[in-house]
């Protein structure tokens, strides 16, 4: 069957209030025939009850009671649609200023970000924020959609100005691949179908980009990293001596016969077999979940990492990270927290706040004593046991960690390792 060659693309949408994000998502779902009749009926009914004389497509995406009451999106919502070429997961994140944490959450797993700009308003404070977060979280691809072109008479000059303005800002950022598309989400211009109103635009439609953007090299396939999740020991007659190290490959390509090193013990061995769903495979790579068995009997448990002998990650208890703070309680230096990194968990101390980033200007604010919710800051951390990590730039999986409040058990920070 053809569908078995379909790839998965995860993308986020970020936009300011009223710049048409829900309409764009509604349009993508509608034009790809992913909205069912009973969903449209329900939305039509709710729209009528609210006294609207149009179908409010945002009701499709706002699921919670309080969201529907307030007409705003509070939480990340996940949407799904598929075309014959690809399957898509949208992390639909709210654009309000106080919801940086949601944008960061949605961005953490995305291959691509759609950044929406209202053609009438041009670059806003929120646009800076969205672009910065896409860059910070190292989303490999970005598409800037200049929306509501119908309201500016499909004027090429207005579009060109916004593109130049965005490029001037993004030159300070680190986004590898940025595309620009003039669209009207309301009427569908350049969303799925090419617009006849903008002959001057020679690029492709949004859907074409989504279906064709090259994502195969988004993962790190160079540096072998295998954090052990759990050890599988069947204790049955048939599998008497089976000791499979179960986990998901976070980087590189593993093959039977590879010389490997185990962290933290430092023991070396050779990969005997790699089982993918009970079937032995010749190679395995990110993001496969596999069982690895080794030639030698070595004590390995959850939190250990299997790597190549001649390519090991950083091993340290002192690191510097860029953290997005997600708690109502401000972060202060000398705070004791729990850190979760790959399959490893330990106590840590946030030692020092080095600087805070002004998201709008990208300036560094130094000499600060605390970091508030939705702030992004560079801090130094000391962990109670060594972590095996790469920089976030090198590997999004082994370069990220979350910070947990020891008392409440809440996730209070998302951190990207700088060194």
């Amino acid at each position, binding site marked *: *069957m053809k*569908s*078995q*060659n*379909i*790839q*998965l693309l995860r993308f986020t949408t970020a936009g300011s209030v009223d710049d048409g994000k829900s309409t764009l998502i509604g349009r993508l779902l509608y034009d790809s025939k992913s909205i*069912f*009749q*009973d969903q449209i009926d329900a939305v039509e009914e*709710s729209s009528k009850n609210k006294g609207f004389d149009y179908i409010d497509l945002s009701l499709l*995406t*706002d*699921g*919670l*009671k*309080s969201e*529907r009451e307030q007409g705003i999106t509070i*939480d*990340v*919502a*996940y*949407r*799904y649609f598929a075309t014959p070429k*690809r*399957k898509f997961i949208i992390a639909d994140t709210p654009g309000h200023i106080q919801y940086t*944490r949601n944008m*960061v*959450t949605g961005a*953490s797993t995305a291959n691509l970000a759609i950044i929406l700009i209202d053609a009438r308003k041009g670059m806003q404070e929120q646009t800076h924020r969205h672009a910065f977060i896409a860059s910070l979280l190292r989303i490999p691809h970005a598409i800037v959609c200049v929306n509501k072109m119908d309201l500016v008479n499909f004027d090429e000059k207005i579009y060109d100005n916004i593109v130049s303005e965005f490029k001037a800002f993004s030159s300070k950022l680190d986004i590898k691949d940025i595309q620009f598309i003039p669209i009207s989400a309301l009427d569908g211009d350049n969303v799925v179908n090419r617009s006849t109103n903008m002959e001057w635009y020679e690029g492709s439609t949004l859907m074409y980009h989504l279906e064709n953007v090259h994502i*195969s090299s988004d*993962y790190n396939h160079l540096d072998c990293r295998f954090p052990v*999740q*759990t050890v*599988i020991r*069947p204790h*049955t007659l*048939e599998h008497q001596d*089976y000791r*499979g190290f*179960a986990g*998901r490959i976070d980087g590189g*390509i593993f093959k039977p016969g590879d010389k490997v090193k185990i962290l933290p013990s430092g023991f070396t061995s050779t990969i005997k077999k790699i*089982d993918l*769903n009970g079937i032995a495979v*010749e190679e395995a790579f990110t*993001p*496969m*979940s596999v*069982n690895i068995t080794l030639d030698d009997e070595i004590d390995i448990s*959850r939190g250990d990492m299997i790597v190549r002998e001649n390519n090991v990650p950083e091993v340290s208890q002192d690191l510097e990270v860029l953290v997005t703070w*997600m708690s109502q309680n401000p972060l202060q230096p000398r705070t004791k927290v*729990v850190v979760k*990194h790959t399959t490893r968990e330990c106590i840590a101390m946030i030692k020092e706040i080095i600087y805070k980033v002004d998201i709008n200007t990208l300036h560094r604010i130094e000499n600060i004593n605390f970091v508030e919710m939705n702030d992004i800051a560079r801090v130094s951390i000391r962990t109670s046991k060594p972590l095996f990590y790469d920089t976030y730039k090198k590997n*999004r*999986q082994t370069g*990220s960690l*979350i910070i947990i409040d020891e008392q409440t*058990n809440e996730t209070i920070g*998302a951190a990207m390792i700088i060194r």
Partner: protein
Amino acid sequence: MTNYVITHLRELESEAIFVIREIAAQFENPVLLFSGGKDSILLTHLAKKAFFPAKIPFPLVHIDTGHNFPETIDFRDNLVKKLGVKLIVGSVQNAIDNGRVIEESGANASRNSLQIVSLLDTLEEHKIDAAMGGARRDEEKARAKERFFSHRDEFGQWDPKNQRPELWNLFNGRKHFGEHFRVFPISNWTEMDVWEYIKLENIELPSLYFSHERECVLRDGVILANSKFIKLKKGEEVRTMTVRYRTCGDMPITGAVESTANSLDQVIKEISYTRTTERGGRADDKRAETAMEDRKKQGYF
């Protein structure tokens, strides 16, 4: 494989297996909530793969409303035997008999929301700290906001406005004594993914999912199976129809669709043309616009 990409079904499979293994590693007493529906059958299949060649290292829990399709119960018992896993049954009938819950009355009476009490009682009785389920985000609008690791307070309640952010593939399962987690490994699967994967892996399903002849009653536009659990209203008549099920809940509330699809290929073809959601036939979701959110807050699946 020189391209180093995997298909969307294998990526979803790998993600689900990662999450299932995290549950086994992070919790002391996890279980798999098994309803007998295709999603929980799929979840059980993934759990088997996650620990192969070892057995699934946790029990299955079935909350039995007493209103199940007999096909569901037969299937459940067979599966448990084949896998060699423990089965825990929480009985809604017992809860009614013990006076823990009061049964709804009237023609549209349903035991659906009564399951909440039996489920929470069962979790408490067996000191279960993580219950994984086959719910998917594409099923329903409140579920679209669910986390993979969903925290429940000591009363089993879900607080949708105060959920833990979930980043990368780092899942925070830390909790206080008495609290528990609901975990949803197949969050990112759609109905179509589920069917395509069932076909890919040749997973056995109860016969309900394929076309068969059945005595039915048409009520509020929904085709319901005639059974001893349903009271006929005035003017309603029983007729034999050729139907199949897209979801599998209690007999009195699960709507069938008229269908002649009797193979996986035909089912997949039918779904790709269909214009209603699979829960469109679920009377339990039609009670209010936020019926699912309301039940979930109280501790529903």
